[in-house]
C-alpha cells in the first residue's frame, strides 16, 4: 500500500515570491510520482511526473519538482508565482501504469498581489 503526505494544508504567498510544496510518500518498490493542479470548480490537470533518471523534473508553467529517495520526497517548486497559480496542488503516487493514482490531501496555494 502506498501513502502520500502533504504537510501544508494552506500556503499564502505574494506574487513574485517563490514557493515550495512538500510531498512525502511511503512505498517499498518502484513508484511513479506526479503533481496535479486543481483550480476552483475544475478537474485536476497534470503538472509533471517522475519515474527514474534526473531527480529534478520540469513541468508546465515554470513548475519543477525534485525527487529524493533518501527522504521519500517529491517536493514541488516555482521560482516566481503568479496570481493565476492560486489553486489546490495534489501530489500523487502510483505503483502501476493502469491501476490509478493515490493522492495526498492537497495544498491550497493563495497568491496575493
Amino acid at each position, binding site marked *: 500500500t502506498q501513502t502520500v503526505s502533504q504537510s501544508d494544508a494552506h500556503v499564502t504567498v505574494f506574487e513574485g515570491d517563490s514557493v515550495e510544496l512538500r510531498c512525502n510518500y511511503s512505498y517499498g518498490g518502484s513508484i511513479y510520482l506526479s503533481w496535479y493542479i486543481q483550480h476552483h470548480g475544475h*478537474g*485536476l490537470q497534470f503538472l509533471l511526473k517522475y519515474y527514474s533518471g534526473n531527480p529534478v523534473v520540469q513541468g508546465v508553467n515554470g513548475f519543477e519538482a525534485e525527487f529524493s529517495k533518501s527522504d521519500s520526497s517529491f517536493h514541488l517548486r516555482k521560482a516566481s508565482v503568479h496570481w493565476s497559480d492560486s489553486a489546490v496542488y495534489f501530489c*500523487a503516487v502510483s505503483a502501476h*501504469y493502469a491501476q490509478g*493514482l*493515490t493522492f495526498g*490531501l492537497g495544498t491550497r496555494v493563495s497568491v496575493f498581489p
Partner: protein
Amino acid sequence: EAAVTQSPRNKVAVTGGKVTLSCNQTNNHNNMYWYRQDTGHGLRLIHYSYGAGSTEKGDIPDGYKASRPSQENFSLILELATPSQTSVYFCASGDTPEVFFGKGTRLTVV
C-alpha cells in the same frame, strides 16, 4: 488534447434511488478511472478499467458498480444511493501517472 466529458454536471438524487454517472473520452485511452473527492479525504479511487468489458475495484468500491461497454464510455452506478455518497465525482482516462480528468459531477443525495 485528451477530452474527458462527464454528464450530468450536477445531480440531485433521492435516498434509495438509482444513479448513473456517465463519462466519455475521445483519446482512445485503454485505462479509465472513477474517483470521488471529499473535504478531508482528497481524491479516492472507486473503480477503474483496463478496456472495454473490464472493471476493477479501487480503494472504496462498496456501494458502487462500474460499467465499461466501449473504449470511449465508462459509467459509475449507484444502485441504492445514500446520503454518504454525496460528493464530487471525477472520471479520468490515460496511463498513470499522466491522466486526464473530466470537470466533475456534483452529486447530492437527499
